[in-house]
């Protein structure tokens, strides 16, 4: 067991006093200024905030892509700030699922191959996993496009594949960065439904950063980034 892991069942996400600044033209710009939050297992939480409020920075810290200047990030009890870059990468491949604003499917892999990628990285590609990938593809309504390359798919279709990819390896936590930000209203609703349903069905924890109140409204809880801190948004 990793030294940073506790023995009781820990929350999915624990953020303690997170601080993060960037230097801009010689001046320091503080993006996050003491973020505290706890997300319980199976909970679906949205983080609202306008552009430039630090939503993506927060997601980068939660995913271990970036490190805070100060504070602690625990995912399932594991302190990411205590891990090396290599360990955080391995943690990410095993425990996190990602949905990006710009889909970020690998253009040189087919739809099915994109889905199998997280399983392969996790080292668990077998008949069961392939079945699971096929079922997920059916669930997002794209079973017939399994052999297509992403550039042949519409934006909505690509994002549906991305949702399936984020869930296929049964991650502890699914992170979504403006998952509907690049889609039209109808498609955005479709993807939001899909994301909510599939995450809910599997009892995954979901953390979505968005500026879409419609998407945020589908989550169990909504937080808002306000001057570098997370505050609860009244519903």
């Amino acid at each position, binding site marked *: 067991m990793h030294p940073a892991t506790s023995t009781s069942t820990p929350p999915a996400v624990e953020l303690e006093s997170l601080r993060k600044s960037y230097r801009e033209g010689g001046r320091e710009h503080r993006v996050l200024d003491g973020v505290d939050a706890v997300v319980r297992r199976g909970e679906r939480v949205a983080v609202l905030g306008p552009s430039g409020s630090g939503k993506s920075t927060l997601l980068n810290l939660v995913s271990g*892509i970036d490190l805070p200047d100060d504070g602690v990030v625990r995912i399932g009890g594991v302190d990411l700030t205590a891990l090396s870059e*290599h360990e955080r990468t*391995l943690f990410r*491949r095993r425990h996190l699922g990602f949905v*990006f604003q*710009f889909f*970020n499917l690998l253009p*040189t*892999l087919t739809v099915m191959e994109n889905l*199998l990628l997280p399983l392969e990285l996790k080292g668990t590609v077998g008949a069961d996993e392939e079945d699971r990938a096929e079922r997920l593809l059916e669930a997002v309504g794209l079973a017939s496009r399994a052999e297509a390359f992403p550039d042949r798919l519409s934006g909505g279709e690509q994002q549906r594949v991305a949702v399936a990819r984020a869930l296929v390896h049964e991650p502890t936590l699914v992170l979504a960065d403006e998952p509907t930000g690049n889609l039209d209203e109808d498609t955005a609703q479709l993807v939001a439904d899909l994301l909510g349903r599939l995450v809910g069905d599997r009892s995954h924890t979901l953390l979505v950063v968005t500026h879409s109140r419609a998407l945020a409204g589908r989550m169990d809880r909504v937080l808002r980034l306000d001057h570098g801190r997370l505050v609860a948004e009244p519903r």
Partner: protein
Amino acid sequence: MSLVRRAGRRHLTRHPAQLVLSVLGVALGVAVVVSIDLAIQSSREGFRVSAETVAGRATHHVLGGVGGLPDSLFARIRVDLGMRASAPVVEGYASSPLRPGAALRVVGVDPFSEGPFRPFVAGGPSGLDVSALLTVPRAVVLSARTAGAAGVGPGNALPVSVAGRSESLPVAGLLEPGEGPTRSGLDDVLILDIAWAQDLLAMPGRLSRIDLRLPEDSEPEALEALRALLPADARVEAAGVRTAALSEMISAFDLNLRALSLLALVFGMFLIYNAMTFSVVQRREMIGSLRALGVTRREVLAAVLREAAWIGGVGAAAGLVVGTALGRGLVRMVTRTINDLYFVVSVQELTVPPAVLAKGALLGLGATLLASLPPALEAASSPPRVARTRSLVEGRATRAVSRAAALGALLLGAGCAGLAVPSRSLVASFGALFLVILGMALLAPAGAVLLVGVLRPAAARWMGILGTMAARGVVTALSRTAPAIAALVVAVSVTVGLGVMIQSFRGTLTRWLDGTLQADVYVSLPSPMASRSAGTLGPDVVGSLTAHPAVRGRNTYRGVEVPVEGGILRIVALDLHPLGEAAFDFLEGGAAEAFPAFRDGGAVLVSEPLAYRRALGVGDSLVVPTPAGARALPVAGVFYDYGSDRGVVMMSRRTYEELFDDDGITSLGLFLEDGADPERVVEELRALVPPHRTLVVRTNATLRSASLEVFDQTFQVTAVLRLLAFAVAFVGVLSALMALQLERARELGVLRANGLTPRQVWRLVTAQTGLMGLISGALAVPMGLVLASVMIFVVNKRSFGWTLRMEVGPDVVVQAVALALVGALLAGLYPSWRMARTSPAEALRGE
């Protein structure tokens, strides 16, 4: 195959032009290195095998000075010293119209002494009919392969020319040794009985050497007894020493060719570096996504290097095939140069040692991996961010340009400092030269940024907004344009450097010939080796030619080679007409002081390469072995000479005859009366030559052009290498810029969607590639001149000991800019054509 690997492989196959050009870059680089290696190895191997075959199983050789050894010495060694395992040998060279261009090695042996040395000519089991060799005048045996090449067989006669005399040698038998060294060692070797060989080579009563087999247990005593018996200018050497010393003569030539061939590989590396950098830049987003999904840095690094290894492997395999084919052509050029300048070697087939192929493959693979390492590390260091802005990437690239320039300046400084260190090490020189090249490559992008600033207003005036966009595109996309420009500049500057070096060499040689060739007509013996001839003209011929009424004076030359410790010393004895003294251009010592000491004081003049090699100057002494023992002769002057990189020592005829008791004349320079027509006199002189003799009688102008022809032949290999470097550079230009433009498909799609016509797209693409070509060409010229200076003043001096004057002709400069520009414009054609055919929607949709 893992999905990460599959994604990478598909990326490569989706960019076939980029892939093919990368493979081609490695293939050409490997091909050049392998072909040069094979050509040199084959020449060396040919020489070694031939020398060993002819030397047979001898453990030692007794060698004579000028004119060889007296016949009687052999009898004394055999009888007085009781060394039964001894064999006399006479050697010389001939040419035959049936083997054009080949120098035939004439070896005279005593078949009855040959048993312990060369069983294949000793009769008995070999099946050779020794009696025919002894009884038929000038009967010759030769290998079946040589006979086949000349189209003769037993019963036929082989026409040959020896020192200008035409002879016909009846073929008494064919040697058919089994496979192995002996077989190729007998290529172009003619074996005669020793008495007939002495007659043929005009060496009555003389031997070239005596081969010995000394028993190991009594070797020191035997050597002591031998030395007591030998004439003063004779020496006894262990077998292999001479071969090694001769082989060492070509080491500088060999190293220069190898270094040049490595340049082609360096170009190939730039190509790979460029292609892989591009491939990584193209996949920035994809790598970011993979990193976000949990692919580690190590896995990204491994993926990129695996792709590079695949390209390197395929390229190296293709390079080995092309290199072996190319080697067959190059070996002829290399052996001709070695024959002309150093020693006789016959190579009828390319030796392809597996080690050379393995080395070439490893070099290709290693170079590819090394060149791919920086982009692979760059890819691996990509943070797993998925929304990295383009400006962030370009901001990093801009900072990298400044850092690269600083590092480049540092490497350039280190390279220059390395070159400035007084050293004779060629390896150190080439090491420093490569540092200079690398330094300049790193400085190139910064130079390009500066030049774009200068050229942008002109581009804007000429093409309006498209011109501005084309110019700005070079600096705003530095992550992609900088490696392309660096690769281009290095490739073009090296071709400029080589071009200027060859041009300067030729110019220096031409001026030297103009000064050296003072006589109006030259008479010499024909020889299969350009720079030397064996035999003498004979007093009768000299007398009748110089008695021609149009001849008012003459120079006589006698060229001989004497074995000295660690090599051969070439001596030329001169009897100079006062007009002939003007031929000397002194580097050290003036004509006024040097010539009186030369004529009357027993002093010698040494050529620059000899002075360089032996660290000689005016006032020093040169030790020369003579029949009366070693003599230290004062050096009165050091003169410029480009005839041989081994160097030559000139002594007056009087000094030479006193020392060597030899009155032979190898060649003549004749001064004609004012108003005499040299062409007509040449015709008349030819008519004076006895019918059985062939002499080369030619005018000053003909000799001059023949000398330049030898030069051009010598530099043919370099020219071929330059051409290949040019080809690699061209492929580099093409691949770098084509990839750059293809990567802009989406951006161009946006422009098309905004109303740019296909023609305007073509203009924009062409303007940008043209601008990059122009900038690279402009940067390559000064950098090429720096490289040329290094090659001329440092590498050449340390390799061959020559002082050259740098000459820069406009054609080399024009060629460089044209190479870059034409390559760049051609590189723009395909992307423009493709973009013009692609609908904007497709371009926006696709990658």
